[in-house]
């Protein structure tokens, strides 16, 4: 495949500018670049979702004209979008055959074919499963199966590893190598440079919409690659001196959240303690209960049993608003769904979540002037890049949206911060500043519950890390000694820490063994210093 002079202009932005590179058949070709560099746009052009304003694409030497995904599919291009393009209420079979019904119909022939592909690539997919029931890893494999089912020769993967744990990433890469061996071409995008270097045969760097260079992964290291991308060093989450005190701020006691009638509990006996100045990290593969844990703590969901304490007060049956008023700040995982009114101006978004608090409200009324003034302050202090506080939240970039949210949540002197994936999808600059904010607040005595899929971030910021698996806390780790691989293994229940690890990991069931794992002990023995975290170093 060959690209030449691809240019794509969006209103106000040039997303791609004179892009050109070649991809050899039977190779894995990586594309790297910062947020907004134009990678996704380029891939969408290759897949016919968007039309380039200029430039040409050649596949096997023949120029192709891609008007729609169907054209791309016809010339053997398949794409896996970062946000999975699956209909949850359809079965795997329906999702896979959709649009490719001509190949093997939508019945038994297709079912057989799916089983065949699944077996030969070790994808382990049941064609009759409902997608809604499946986890991220399986969904990713369905996406790949979709592409293979269509006999694609060129496969595009847009940030396929962002939501996977290391083991899953390894599996994926094995699959990719398998595909490569069969002569397929893989184009793939990632922000994780180590991965890129380990799997790619060549790497193209894009900066501000243009190709900077195509390099051989054997000849560069990650640092050099990063420098090519941004021209400066990547900040990494660095740990600093521990600020953990012995003042317990947030504590949960044996929280259970029942699933549906026939399913296992979504949360099963979660007990944890966070002290002032402590960052408690939770590692887990998506869908293992961390989202529900956050919702229970925030009062958005009623636990089936169990208690939540803020300081010494039982807040289990408090409502979200009371909990927030009591000083629990919340950075939700899905900002579009849970943290923003996309169609409302920034200053109204400043009010959201703090409708009853100064300076947003005066008695029963909204204090628009106060809220606007404070929004200006947040925009200034947190470097939210926006032309005005009157534009809609939707028109900000994701990183700037996130900075606004962080600024808003930190504006009410919180005692606890519940942060789920606070830097997901934001660019390096914004990421660094969000980390800084969390660190500063922690120094001032904030207790932080941090949930993140980015294990580096988790290890770098946390004072203690718990692993959550199938609704249970299955292990406790010291961030100073643990590696991302160890965590990954624990998260999938693959090694060492068995699922339901309450046998050899008493921390998950602290009440049974008080003192055995103080970091998870709900304050049963207050005299125990949180020495097992940073201080012990």
């Amino acid at each position: 495949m060959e690209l030449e002079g691809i240019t794509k202009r969006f209103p106000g932005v040039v997303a791609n500018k004179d892009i050109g590179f070649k991809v050899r058949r039977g190779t894995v070709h990586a594309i790297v670049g910062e947020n907004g560099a134009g990678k996704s746009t380029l891939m969408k052009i290759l897949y016919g979702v968007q039309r380039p304003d200029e430039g040409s694409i050649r596949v096997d030497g023949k120029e192709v004209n891609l008007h729609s995904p169907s054209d791309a599919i016809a010339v053997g291009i398949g794409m896996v979008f970062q946000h999975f393009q699956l209909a949850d209420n359809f079965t795997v079979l329906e999702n896979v055959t959709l649009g490719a019904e001509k190949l093997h119909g939508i019945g038994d022939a297709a079912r057989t074919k799916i089983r065949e592909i699944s077996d030969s690539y070790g994808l382990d997919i049941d064609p009759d499963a409902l997608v809604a029931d499946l986890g991220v890893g399986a969904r990713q494999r369905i996406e790949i199966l979709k592409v293979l089912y269509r006999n694609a020769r060129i496969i595009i993967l847009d940030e396929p590893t962002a939501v996977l744990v290391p083991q899953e990433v390894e599996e994926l890469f094995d699959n990719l190598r398998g595909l490569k061996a069969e002569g397929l071409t893989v184009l793939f995008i990632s922000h994780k440079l180590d991965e890129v270097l380990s799997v790619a045969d060549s790497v193209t760097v894009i900066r501000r919409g243009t190709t900077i260079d195509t390099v051989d992964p054997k000849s560069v290291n990650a640092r050099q690659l990063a420098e090519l991308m941004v021209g400066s060093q990547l900040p990494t989450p660095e740990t600093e001196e521990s600020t953990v005190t012995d003042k317990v701020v947030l504590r949960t006691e044996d929280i259970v959240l029942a699933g549906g009638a026939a399913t296992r509990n979504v949360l099963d006996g979660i007990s944890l303690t966070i002290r002032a100045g402590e960052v408690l990290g939770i590692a887990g593969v998506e869908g293992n209960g961390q989202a529900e844990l956050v919702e229970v703590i925030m009062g958005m969901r009623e636990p089936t049993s169990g208690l939540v304490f803020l300081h010494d007060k039982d807040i289990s049956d408090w409502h979200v608003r009371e909990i927030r008023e009591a000083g629990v700040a919340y950075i939700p995982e899905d900002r579009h769904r849970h943290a923003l009114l996309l169609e409302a101006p920034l200053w109204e978004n400043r009010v959201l979540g703090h409708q009853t608090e100064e300076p947003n409200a005066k008695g029963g009324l909204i204090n628009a002037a106060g809220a606007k003034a404070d929004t200006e302050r947040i925009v200034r202090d947190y470097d939210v890049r926006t032309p005005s506080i009157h534009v809609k939240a939707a028109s900000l970039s994701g990183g700037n949206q996130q900075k606004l949210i962080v600024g808003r949540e930190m504006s009410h002197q919180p005692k606890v911060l519940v942060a789920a994936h606070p830097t997901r999808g934001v660019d390096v600059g914004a990421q660094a500043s969000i980390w800084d904010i969390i660190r500063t607040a922690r120094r001032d005595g904030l207790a932080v519950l941090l949930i993140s899929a980015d294990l580096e971030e988790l290890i770098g910021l946390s004072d203690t890390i718990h692993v959550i698996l199938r609704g249970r806390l299955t292990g406790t780790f010291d961030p100073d000694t643990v590696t991302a691989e160890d965590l990954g293994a624990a998260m999938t229940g693959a090694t060492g820490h068995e699922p339901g690890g309450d046998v050899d990991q008493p921390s998950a069931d602290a009440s049974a063994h008080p003192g055995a794992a103080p970091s998870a002990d709900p304050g049963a023995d207050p005299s125990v210093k949180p020495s097992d975290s940073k201080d012990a170093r």
Partner: protein
Amino acid sequence: MSAAGLDVGTTKVPTKPSRRRLTPRHWALIVFGAILLMSVLRVVTGANDLASSGLLIAAFGLAVPIAMAGLGGLWSERAGVVNIGLEGMMILGTFGAGFLGYHMGAWWGLVGAIAGGVIGGLIHAVATVIFGVDHIVSGVALNIIALGFAKYLSVRFFSGLPGGGPTQSPQLPQLPSVTVPGLSDSLGTLEERHIFFVSDLAGVLRALCTRVSIVTIIAVLLFVATWWILWRTAFGLRLRSVGESPVAAESLGVNVIRYKFIAVAVSGGLAGLGGGFLALVAANLFRDGQTGGRGYIGLAAMIFGNWRPGGLLAGSALFGYTDAAQLRGGGTTVHAFLLVFAILLIGIGIWQVARRGRLVQGVLAIVVGLGVGAWYFLTDTIPQELSGTTPYVVTLLVLAFASQRLRMPAADGQIYRKGEGH
């Protein structure tokens, strides 16, 4: 505002969606149980009309237009377009049936009905699919236009015709109906005997083979066809995919706009056919205001039926049955329903207390149940004014007792814009 509405009240706990499909055996059992219930009720209350073939035939007649409107709604909403404009499409269908039916004959009337509905569907499709207009806005506007347009046209075209007038068409020619000769009569004899269960079964069977309009048969076939097309063909898969996840469909090369467009047009045609049934079969003429809100009821029946043909059929049948019962038997037949309701309430109350430990709700249900029971035993009939509301009350009650598991197509009511979703 968007057409999708709020989720509040529907269960959020990640229950596994029950994919227990009802097998033909289950269906048979359900039907059997329903007939048994009716016959017990008939014997206990003495309301002989409850399972008569006449009532059931009437129920079919009242259910078909609703079911057709609902089926229209199903097509459109399966493709992600909320269709509150069914009423308007039906109205256009009645006029189409009246106009072509009078001038060209009954079968052409049917064509006219469908054409009228399709015109309505196309307007809705252009507005919602092409211009991204909020589905509710478009539907409401369509209803207003259709109402005015049909009246305007009928004044324009039916005034002065023999038997016609500003609000009605002349008498329309009849469409054929089917009766299985020997069977219908012998079942009739059996039915007259009022033997427990046997006569009731005979009544049901007789209703199925006596004076069945050809349009009813077409309607049944359309149900089967809809099920087959939407759930068994590639076309249907694509159509449903644009209602579940248009972005995913688009990424696989499905022309989302085209499928939505087709679905809404078909939706209009089906609703129009429902209107055509009213004009050609139920009344033999077009009359202004003939639809009487049946489009809305069809929409309700579809939601009731959880966006599935079988459920929709059950919903329309329930409505048709209760409506026919109150229209034919008036207060006396409806009075019999009180007994069912009382027993149901007391049963639920006991269950609430015994199995779920909900004392307050349970006792409340029992008390209300006893009250209804007392009402049953202390009166012989229900006033006309109240019995007329039976179908609405029953629908509401059934929904209240068995809602919650409804699941609409995931992208229903969302405005889709090409290429903006990825």
